[in-house]
C-alpha cells in the first residue's frame, strides 16, 4: 500500500523491540470475540491511483457542474470566479497539512492569516470584533442565537420569514432547546412587521439581508424595535459579496452578524465545506463562540499572534464553554482571506457592482416575458420571479434542456402553497449574455 512506509522486515524488527509475538498481541485488551477477521468487511481491496481516479471521475461525470451549463442557482450558495492563485496557495503543504495552531512559535503563518481574516470580516460587516470562523453560515446563525440567549438570559428568538429555511431549521434544532423559536410568516418580496412580535421575553430577532428571496431589508427599524425591548438584532448574510455594495449590518444596528463566506474564495462543493463568518459588538466578546486569534509579543519583544481568550472554549471550560466547537473552518478561511486580499477595496466593490448589474439585466429580460412577474423590488444579485405555473416543474424541464434555472421556492418551503410558482434566481460575474439568452428563450418556450 503506497501510503504505508513500514516493510514486513520493519514490522518484525519493531515487534522484536516491543517483545510482542505478533501485532494482535498489541490488541490483547480487545475482547477476542470483537476482533473481526478481514472477511467480515464486505468491501473492496487496495487500488492503485489510476483505478481510483477512474472510479471517482465516473461519479463526477454524472453530475452537471455549474460551469458546464447556463446556471442560476443561489439560495445560500453562489457560483463565483475564484482566482487561480487562491487554490494554489491553500494547497501549500504548510497550510494544508498543519493542525490547529496550538504551538504558536511554529504556527505564525496560520495565526497571522487568522488575524488578518478577523480584521477583514470585522471591516466587511461593520462590526467591532470577528472570530476565526465557524463551520458555515447556518451553524453560525444558530451560535448567534445561543449567544443572544446567554447575553440576555432570555429564551425566545424571532426568526424572520425571509431567513433561509435551512438556517431556521438549524437554529430551531439547537437553540429551540433553550426557548421558543417564533417564525414570522413568509411574505416574498415584502418587509414584515417584526416589531409586533418582540416582547420582554425576546432574546433576539434574526433577519437575513438580502433575504432568501433576494430582497434587501432595511435593518435599522428592526434594530430600534429590538433594542427598545432589550433584545438583540442578529443579522444574517448568505451572499457576502453583497457587502461590497450595500450598507453593512454594523451600520444598521446589528449586535451580532452571522454570515456564509463561501462566495469569496470557496467553491460550491455540493454544500460544504463552507466558512461561517461571525462578528459582534466588542462588549459581547467574552460570550462569543469559536476560536479567536490575538496579537501579542514573544520573549524577544517581536510581534506575534496566539489563540486567545480560550477560557471560553471547550478544551479549557468543558461543560461551561460558550460552545462545543473545536475546529474552525481553517482552510476555507484561508481561501476567503486570500481571495479578499486579491480583490481589495476596489476589486470587491467592482465585483459587487458587476453582480448587481448582471442580475438587474436578467430581471429586466425575464420581466418582459408574458406571465412572469418580478417579486423582489430591491435586490443584490438574486431575485425571485413569479411564474404562471409551478416552478419545480419548470426547473426540471429546463434541467432536461441543460439549463440550471435556479431554485424553486417550494424546494425550501415545501408546505407553503403560496410559493409554489416562485423561482429564486441568482446571477453573478460568471454569467454571460449567452446564458441569459438561453434561459430567456427556453423559459419562453416552456411557459
Amino acid at each position, binding site marked *: 500500500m503506497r501510503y504505508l512506509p513500514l516493510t514486513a522486515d520493519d514490522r518484525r524488527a519493531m515487534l522484536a523491540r516491543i517483545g510482542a509475538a505478533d501485532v494482535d498481541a498489541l490488541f490483547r485488551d480487545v475482547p477476542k470475540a470483537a476482533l473481526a477477521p478481514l472477511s467480515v468487511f464486505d468491501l473492496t481491496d487496495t487500488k492503485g491511483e489510476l483505478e481510483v481516479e477512474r472510479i471517482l471521475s465516473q461519479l463526477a461525470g*454524472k453530475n452537471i457542474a455549474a460551469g458546464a451549463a447556463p446556471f442560476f442557482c443561489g439560495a445560500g450558495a453562489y457560483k463565483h470566479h475564484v482566482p487561480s492563485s487562491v487554490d494554489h496557495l491553500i494547497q501549500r503543504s504548510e497550510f494544508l497539512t498543519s493542525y490547529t495552531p496550538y504551538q504558536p512559535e511554529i504556527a505564525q503563518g496560520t495565526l497571522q492569516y487568522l488575524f488578518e481574516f478577523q480584521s477583514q470580516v470585522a471591516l466587511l460587516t461593520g462590526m467591532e470584533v470577528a472570530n476565526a470562523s465557524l463551520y458555515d453560515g447556518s451553524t453560525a446563525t444558530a451560535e448567534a442565537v445561543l449567544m443572544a440567549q446567554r447575553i440576555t438570559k432570555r429564551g425566545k428568538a424571532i426568526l424572520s420569514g425571509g431567513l433561509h429555511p435551512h438556517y431556521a431549521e438549524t437554529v430551531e434544532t439547537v437553540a429551540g432547546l433553550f426557548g421558543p423559536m417564533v417564525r414570522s410568516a413568509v411574505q416574498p418580496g415584502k418587509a414584515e412587521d417584526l416589531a409586533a412580535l418582540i416582547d420582554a421575553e425576546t432574546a433576539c430577532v434574526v433577519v437575513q439581508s438580502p433575504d432568501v428571496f433576494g430582497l434587501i431589508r432595511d435593518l435599522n427599524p428592526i434594530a430600534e424595535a429590538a433594542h427598545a425591548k432589550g433584545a438583540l438584532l442578529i443579522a444574517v448574510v448568505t451572499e457576502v459579496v453583497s457587502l461590497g455594495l450595500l450598507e453593512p449590518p454594523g451600520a444598521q444596528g446589528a449586535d451580532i452578524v452571522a454570515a456564509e463566506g463561501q462566495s469569496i474564495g470557496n467553491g460550491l462543493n455540493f454544500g460544504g465545506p463552507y466558512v461561517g463568518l461571525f462578528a459582534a459588538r466588542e462588549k459581547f466578546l467574552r460570550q462569543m463562540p469559536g476560536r479567536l486569534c490575538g496579537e501579542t509579543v514573544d520573549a524577544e519583544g517581536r*510581534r506575534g499572534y496566539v489563540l486567545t481568550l480560550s477560557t471560553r472554549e471547550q478544551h479549557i471550560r468543558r461543560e461551561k464553554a460558550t460552545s462545543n466547537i473545536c*475546529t474552525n473552518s481553517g482552510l476555507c478561511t484561508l481561501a476567503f482571506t486570500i481571495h479578499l486580499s486579491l480583490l481589495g477595496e476596489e476589486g470587491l466593490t467592482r465585483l459587487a457592482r458587476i453582480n448587481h448589474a448582471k442580475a438587474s439585466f436578467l430581471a429586466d429580460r425575464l420581466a418582459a416575458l408574458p406571465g412572469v412577474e418580478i417579486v423582489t423590488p430591491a435586490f443584490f444579485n438574486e431575485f425571485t420571479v413569479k411564474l404562471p405555473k409551478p416552478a419545480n416543474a419548470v426547473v426540471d424541464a429546463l434541467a432536461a434542456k441543460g439549463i440550471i434555472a435556479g431554485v424553486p421556492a417550494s424546494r425550501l418551503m415545501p408546505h407553503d402553497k403560496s410559493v409554489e410558482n416562485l423561482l429564486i434566481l441568482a446571477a453573478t460575474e460568471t454569467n454571460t449574455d449567452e446564458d441569459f439568452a438561453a434561459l430567456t428563450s427556453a423559459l419562453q418556450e416552456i411557459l
Partner: protein
Amino acid sequence: MSMNNQGRPTSSGEAGTTGLATISGDRGLDHEEKLIFELGHGAVGVDLPDVKISDRRLGGLRRKGAIGLPGLSEPEVVRHYVRLSRMNYAIDSGLYPLGSCTMKHNPRLNEKMARLPGFGDLHPLAPQSTAQGALELISQLMNWLTTLTGMPAVAMSPKAGAHGELCGLLAIRAAIESRGEKRPRILVPESAHGTNPATAAFAGFTVDEVPAKPNGHVDAEALKAKLGPDVAAIMLTNPNTCGLFEGEVKEIADAVHAAGAYFYCDGANFNAIAGKVRPGDLGVDAMHINLHKTFSTPHGGGGPGAGPVVLSERLASFAPIPLLVADGKGLRLIEDREAAPAGAKPFGRMCAFHGQMGMFVRALTYMLSHGRDGVRQASEDAVLSANYILASLKDVMSAPFGDGPCMHEALFDDSFLEGTGVTTLDFAKAMIDEGYHPMTMYFPLVVHGAMLIEPTESESKASLDRFIHVLHNLATEARAKKTERFAGAPHLAPRRRLDETAAARKPVLRYRPPDSLKAAAE
C-alpha cells in the same frame, strides 16, 4: 521602535533578534512578514471592469462609507501568503506526534478528486437529477462507514467531530422523548475530550464525571453505580484518551442498556481499530467518525473537518434531515422532515444543505485507495508504531501505563522530570528546536504533566528511530539537570515563547490603522 497603544511594536522584526542582527530584519530564508493591511497600497489583484449601476433597485441601502480593505497586486499577494506559510510546521515537512489529533499523510489524489468540477463546482440545490453522481458517492461512503463500524445507519451532515457529538446526543434526546421519558444526565469519564462535556451541556444535559482507575481505564464499577432512570447516555472514548482499549466496554454497554440509557462512543480514536474491530459489536448506539483523522482529510490549520455519525437500530429513525433514499428514479435527498419515509422521525437539521461533500470525496478516495486490507494495515501500523515508541522510551521517560501495550498513542507523564526544573512545557518546546512539532501536552487530564504521542502509520522506521533518538537524548539531558536547552525553549523557531497572558488581558483581535490607534490613545 514605534509602539501602539498596547505598548506593542507596530511592526514585526523591530525588536530583539538572536545572534547576528541583519539590516533587513530577515534572516536568510526566514522572512519577517508585515500584515496584509500594512502592505496594501491601492493596487488591485484582479482585473474586473468598472461597471456603473443605478441605485434604483438597492432599496436606499447602498454602502455609504469605504470598507477599509488593503489593495495589492497578485504577485504581492502570492508572496505574502508564501512567506506566511513558511512559518508553519506541517505533516508534509515532519513527524507531527500530536496525540489525539492523528496527523497522518494527506494523499494529494484526494485533493485532486475533490476538485473535479462534478463535485467541486456542484450546487447543493441543483436539481437532484443533475447530481446523481454526488448522491451515489455519498451512498458509497455511507456503505463504507456502516460496514467498517458494523452499524446499520449513518447521519452524514455533521460538519466536524464536535458537531457529530451534538448530532448523536440530539438523536438520543429524541429517542428518550419518544419514550415519554425525561433523562437529564449524561455520564462522561474525566479523561474525555473537552468537547464531550461541552456538547452534553450544549444539548441541554447536565454532566456527571466518572473517575478513571489508576490503570488509566474508566472505572466501570463507579460508572455502573451512577446509572439510573435519570441517565440519558454515557459518552465513552474507545480506545480512550490514555491510548488504551477499554476492555470492559461490552459489559459497560450492557449495563447502560439495561438501565435504559444509550452508549455514545467518541470515535476520535477509531483510527486505531478501523478494519479490525466493529464498534457495533461492542454495543455502541452512536459514534461520530472524524473523517479528518481516520480517513485523512487534511486538517488545514484547524478545519474544515467532517463528523458523520453512525447510529444503532435504536437510534437510526431519529437521524436528522437530509436523508438519502433510493427509489425507482435513482437516489433522492429528503430535505423535509414531514416527507420522511414511514417510521423515520428526524429530530431536526444540523446545518444548511447536506454536509461536508468536499470531505466526503476525499474520504472515499482514501478508502478506495486503501481498501479494507489497507485500512486494517494502517490501524495495525499505527498501533505498532506507538508501541515501538513506548517500548523505546519508557525506560528514560516515564510511562504511567507502560506495563502493557498501548493502542495508537503512547502516553508519558512528567514524573521523570521531577526535581529537574524542566517542565512538560519546556520539554515539549525543546522538541521544536530539534525540528519536531511537540506532542499533545497536559492532556488527558487524568495524568500529571501528560505527554501524548501519536506517530500514526505514516512514519517509516528510520523516521521513528530518529525521533526516538532525539527524545531519548532530550530526556537523558533533562534527567541529568542539563537544563540550558529547555529554559525558554524554543530558541530557533520563527518566534520565541509568546506572551499569552498579555494577549488575553488586553485583547487585540484585529488590525487598526495607526491613525485610529493614535486617535484612540488621545
